[in-house]
């Protein structure tokens, strides 16, 4: 019996117990049951699936199950832990996967959302009135989860939250969602974000851990439905604990002229990092004029495993996808950037770009960069590329001949290299937050070997 099968069997009773809980309405139980069926057919994510080629998640889950329960952690009453260094904005705190802010939990948004409380709302998906949300329900029912991780989370998560930005609303302040792990165990969270036509917002999801978190498993699913003309700037910042295992999946459906701009950042915390992070991003540009722009930067060090996967599908005309990732790998770490831009037949005028630039800072580090294009249309403008190299010796010498010592010169060069993976969010404070995350990631990197 393989690892994947045995751990799926471990999940079986947990999933059944979850689906039999009475708190979900019938339509929601149906949605979760469909995910369960798909999961049983596809199995858990692992190396047997091309998109998970570099991350043996099934093996990791089995190893985790030997030391800890795979059942979702229980909420901790009155947990007031707050992650440090978050940007200003409308703050929502999740601890161990549970919404920690009681006022928001009970839909008392005034204090949290302030003057913008009429522009957006957060509610438990189970509380959604189906008679008023036919379109959203249709989307949920039709959504083909292309990632088995999303299905696993759908079947198991104790809570699913829906963040809705109302039609035409321009949310000025970022919505900041802090996901904090403060104890061992399995923390599962699921967030659906619905931007109605013409809405715009900035959303930051920050994943962090306290030192007390120790060895934990974080399963995090975020799904976006971006209606016509809506615009979302989304930052997903991973600063997991030294012994964290983070498996994240983000899926987006983009309607006509909708735009999703993504900033992905990894800057783990703590010395002697051993954590593993695998983030999958799936974007479907379903109609004309949709845009998906992604920038990302990571600095893997020690024994970290950082894996970013992108799947972008163009089904409409005149869409645009542009992914650029910058990565560093030092010590014995491993960094991965892979994925595919797919352009469907009989579409016109689509642009797709996918590049991954990486630096190896140590002879023991490893980078796998595999951006792909799969094009079935004639009228496209596409490019993809990957580089894996070392610090430029001429650049290093140039700085040294100006009196800058080797260590500082390396820091300047690596910071400059990673900066190409930063997105201009249009918000100065948020840009500074991105920069700060980047520098934090660099500080943990030991630089190149002597």
């Amino acid at each position, binding site marked *: 019996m393989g690892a994947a099968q045995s751990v799926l069997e471990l999940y079986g009773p947990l999933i059944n117990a979850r689906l039999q809980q009475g708190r979900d309405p019938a339509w929601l139980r149906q949605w979760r049951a469909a995910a369960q069926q798909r999961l049983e057919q596809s199995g858990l994510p692992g190396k047997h699936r091309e998109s998970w080629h570099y991350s043996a998640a099934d093996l990791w889950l089995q190893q985790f199950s030997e030391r800890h329960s795979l059942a979702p952690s229980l909420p901790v009453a009155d947990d007031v832990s707050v992650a440090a260094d978050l940007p200003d904005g409308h703050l929502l705190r999740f601890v161990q996967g549970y919404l920690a802010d009681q006022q928001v939990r009970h839909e008392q948004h005034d204090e949290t959302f302030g003057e913008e409380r009429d522009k957006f709302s957060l509610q438990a998906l189970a509380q959604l009135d189906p008679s008023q949300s036919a379109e959203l329900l249709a989307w949920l029912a039709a959504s083909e989860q292309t990632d088995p991780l999303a299905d696993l989370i759908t079947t198991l998560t104790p809570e699913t939250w829906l963040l809705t930005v109302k039609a035409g609303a321009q949310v000025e302040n970022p919505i900041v969602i802090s996901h904090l792990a403060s104890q061992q165990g399995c923390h599962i969270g699921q967030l659906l974000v619905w931007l109605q036509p013409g809405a715009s917002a900035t959303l930051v999801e920050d994943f962090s851990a306290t030192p007390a978190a120790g060895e934990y498993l974080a399963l995090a699913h975020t799904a976006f439905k971006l209606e016509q003309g809506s615009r979302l700037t989304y930052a997903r910042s991973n600063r997991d604990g030294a012994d964290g295992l983070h498996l994240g999946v983000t899926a987006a459906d983009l309607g006509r002229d909708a735009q999703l701009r993504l900033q992905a950042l990894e800057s783990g915390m703590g010395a002697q990092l051993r954590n593993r992070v695998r983030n999958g991003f799936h974007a479907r540009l379903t109609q004309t004029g949709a845009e998906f722009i992604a920038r990302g930067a990571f600095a893997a060090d020690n024994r970290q495993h950082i894996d970013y996967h992108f799947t972008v599908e163009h089904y409409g005309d005149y869409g645009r996808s542009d992914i650029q990732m910058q990565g560093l790998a030092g010590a014995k770490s491993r960094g991965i950037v892979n994925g595919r831009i797919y352009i469907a037949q009989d579409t016109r005028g689509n642009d797709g770009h996918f590049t991954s630039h990486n630096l190896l800072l140590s002879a023991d580090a490893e980078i796998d960069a595999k951006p792909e294009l799969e094009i079935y249309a004639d009228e496209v403008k596409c490019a993809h590329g990957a580089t894996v190299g070392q610090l430029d010796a001429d650049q290093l010498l*140039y700085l040294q001949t100006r009196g*800058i*010592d080797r260590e500082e010169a390396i820091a*300047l060069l690596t910071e*400059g290299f990673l900066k190409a993976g930063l997105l201009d969010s249009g918000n100065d404070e948020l840009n500074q937050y991105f920069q700060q995350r980047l520098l934090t990631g660099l500080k943990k990197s030991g630089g190149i070997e002597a």
Partner: protein
Amino acid sequence: MLKIENLRAAIEGKEILQGLDLNIRPGEVHAIMGPNGSGKSTLTRVLSGDPRYEVTGGQVEFLGRNLLEQEPEQRARGGLFLSYQYPVAIPGVSNIQFLKAAVNAQREAQNLPPMDALQMLERTRDGIKQVNLDESFLQRPVNEGFSGGEKKRNELLQMLLLQPHLCVLDEADSGLDIDALKVVGEVVNGMRAANRSFLLITHYRRLLDHITPDHVHILTAGKIVASGGMELAEQLERSGYRGLAA
């Protein structure tokens, strides 16, 4: 200031400098001229501490200390500056960030407190005017997208800010128009001082019309084969390197 004795150096196993001698006193301007492949750039690279060049013999003393034992940043902090013929571009690192790091490295070596960004900006303003650059260039990445002339001006700006004891200018005139050449001349002449020396590496005489050297040397096949004053440069202009050898 700089004393080079019987310097031999190789790259990838091929010996380029084959026993070079040179003595530069404080306040002097020396020019080294030579044909392509004579070892001019190799000399500058060896002085700067480029690890790709192997010193196979000889000695170099700079301000009384063995230069060859020092790391590149130590040589720079000790007052040696090399203006590159082809300055490298450094994407992602802004000029102001780079200049601040360089100036503060210098200040640390002199036990002075570091400058902050505002102080740095003030300090660079005069220098920017002198080299005819726009202040906006400070926010641009180092040398990225710069024209040849702008890159050379950036080298001069660094020289002005770092105030080195020995300035080695490798082909500072290459690719420059007349106006840009004048700027080079003005900056160098403006920096001439009793405790500062210059080593100009050049193919052509025209730079020397703007900066009058105290000594001219001819470098061929990795050795200085002739030394003199401006008359040597004039003779070279008339007869060429081959004519001089004959």
